């Protein structure tokens, strides 16, 4: 595994990368079958002889993590349990052993170092300081802040406890670091509503020279407000200067493995992960450019059967190995979550 961790993040072309993924994902499939009873049940329903490469592994629905305790380790080896934000319904629960937790951190570090370099940067967190204070509920927002904070120093929060702009903090932070590389991080909708729109309203403009903003957490609220990624970025440029803006795609079920948006607006899979688009009607592989259901693969899901997951997001592969940014592998876009079909009919809930 050590050598796998040291691989360059975006240099393998699809073919070479696929061989690597085939090997690791098939091994994980076998491992989880041997160690997680429900996953074994799932896999044994399919004919084993039809599974010879990563693309053949039936993707396991993310939904199962909301409905079952799915673990491939003994309770004694549990290092920690991650829970999804649970803003919509029951939260997922993901069991980590020490090794998986360590790999998650390593993979995240390797991936982000590609974009940020090795030095820790002064960091402005676009959120309120109390977001990470509640130790009992590890929200996706808190997990994101904690994860990204490893890459920063001199951490400051742009918002106060009431999610309002903390102008003194922002002013002094930008003043101090205007010329230097600096890191900003926040949830997409919070960056937009609580930060950028508020700065605009207060007619505040900055000219940051070497800043990078990472944001993620979904476009649901943005789509509701009909904000496109392009409009989002243009507004940020007007407000903060020509900074680097990167959206990322990731989920608690595969913490550490994140797909980052390049300078051309496409998400890139790191060497340890892959994205497959499947047709909603029959889960067959979609062609490039064809919209379908997103499957995420990750070779570091070692303590729970989360190496090949069927999400409820829609996306499309744009191409492979030939993004203008020069990074190899697949590049793709996400078109948002499939709206949850309401369970209607006789076996209804009262809502």
């Amino acid at each position, binding site marked *: 595994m050590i050598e796998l961790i040291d691989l360059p993040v975006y240099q393998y072309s699809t073919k070479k990368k696929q061989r690597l993924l085939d090997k690791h994902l098939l091994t994980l499939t076998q491992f989880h079958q041997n160690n997680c009873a*429900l996953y074994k*049940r*799932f896999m*044994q*329903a*399919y*004919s084993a002889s039809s599974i010879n490469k990563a693309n053949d592994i039936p993707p*396991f*629905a993310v*939904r*199962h993590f909301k*409905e*079952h305790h799915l673990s491939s380790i003994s309770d004694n080896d549990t290092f920690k349990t991650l829970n999804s934000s649970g803003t919509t319904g029951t939260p997922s629960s993901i069991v980590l052993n020490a090794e998986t937790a360590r790999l998650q951190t390593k993979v995240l570090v390797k991936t982000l170092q590609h974009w940020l370099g090795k030095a820790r940067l002064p960091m402005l967190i676009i959120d309120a300081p109390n977001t990470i204070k509640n130790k009992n509920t590890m929200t996706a927002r808190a997990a994101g802040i904690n994860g990204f904070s490893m890459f920063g120093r001199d951490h400051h929060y742009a918002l106060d406890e009431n999610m309002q702009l903390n102008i003194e903090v922002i002013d002094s932070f930008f003043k101090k670091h205007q010329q230097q590389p600096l890191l900003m991080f926040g949830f997409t909708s919070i960056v937009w509503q609580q930060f950028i729109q508020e700065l605009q309203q207060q007619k505040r403009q900055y000219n940051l020279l070497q800043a990078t903003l990472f944001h993620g957490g979904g476009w649901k609220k943005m789509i509701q407000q009909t904000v496109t990624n392009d409009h989002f970025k243009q507004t940020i440029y007007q407000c903060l200067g020509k900074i680097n803006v990167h959206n990322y795609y990731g989920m608690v079920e595969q913490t550490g493995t994140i797909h980052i948006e390049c300078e051309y607006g496409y998400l890139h899979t790191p060497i340890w992960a892959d994205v497959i688009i499947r047709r*909603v*009607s*029959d*889960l067959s592989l979609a062609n490039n450019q064809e919209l379908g*259901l997103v499957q995420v693969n990750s070779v570091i899901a070692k303590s729970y059967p989360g190496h090949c997951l*069927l999400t*409820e997001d*829609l996306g499309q592969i744009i191409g492979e190995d030939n993004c203008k940014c020069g990074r190899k592998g697949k590049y793709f876009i996400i078109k948002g979550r*499939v*709206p*949850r*079909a*309401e*369970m*209607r*009919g*006789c*076996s*209804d*809930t*009262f*809502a």
Partner: protein
Amino acid sequence: MIPSPNNIHWHIKAKNSEAIDAIETTAKDKLLPWHDSLVNNVALFSQYLLKHPQSKQQAELVALAYWCRKANLAKIKQEYKLLESSSSNTNKRQSVARVFHIAPSNVDTVFFYSLLLSALSGNENIVRISGRSGELCYLLIDLFKQFLNENKALTLKGLVNIVEYNAINTAATTAFSQWATLRVIWGGDEAIEAILAIAPHDNQLCFPDRYSIAVCHLTEEDDIQTVVKKFIADFSPFNQQACSSPKALFWLNTCREIQSEFFKILNQELTKIELDSNCSNRVERQINFQQLLLINDNKIIFQQSNDYLMLVEFESLCVEHLIRHQGNSLLLQKNIVCLTSLPISKKLQSITYWGLNENEQQQIKHTSKQVVPFGLALAFNHHWDGKALLEEFTLPSYFLSE
């Protein structure tokens, strides 16, 4: 007095004054169960639906109109009269007075049958619909509203209230429940439990979770096209989520070639009808299929899917698969050699059949609440889910305090 809790959207509010006028100035016996004035009102609505351009195109509304046409109401009334005359110490029955119906968020029309039967029984009604109701539900309410507005002297006007509110408005559920002498919950075990937790009621009629299945025996003589069309009438409406829609099809001694032909035609016919499913339903179908895989140690013998249908054959098919099945055009199939291998349980609601002889029909008659030929699974019947609604919506008059 109809309660008026906060945060309620009143789709239809009973004309209280008119109702009282109607009772005082005409005769209180207009509110006797199955009084001619009520029957005529409902039959008039049937005509209205059959003529209206918006309802004419909706199969479910046409079915409703057909059910409440004058001739059919006369038939049901006869049955009611029989019920009345069979009461031992009195030949009179009375309405139960006030009924609160809680409709499911879909099977958009079923609540309306319940409402009409209750109104015909002379009861005042409050129907609660969910904010998640389908378009058809709102269309039906709209048409009914128009009908009430266009026709002046309807006894029905005093008897129908339709409200919409969020389930978190427990004050409303409590107020309407306290008002009601009978509460009708159109199911879902979860819904029933949630409502019980908000406001218990000592006289209620519940329709809990059910599943339904189809049994088919085909030979070369059968006109498969016809069989398929009838099957679709049971299978497709409401995204296969009505409790009487079959979730599984059992082939009784039918050769594989004929089955293949059936599915070929089924696929062709399904592409022709306008489905009410969308991308979300197809995603749910994939996830639900996986949920079924986690129920027991099993094998997928066969699986084929497209936008219109997912056809699956498991090595073993058990009751739990049918209970966890969530519709969305997922059809489980199984070959059987005798009817005793059907998955019978107390949650089984309907068996629809084709090609069974008298003996075989007899054999399954008492295994479920309803045994009907293909094509009739969703036809509303006043014996619903084993409950005799004519009896439920009325009382022998000696029960009444006066």
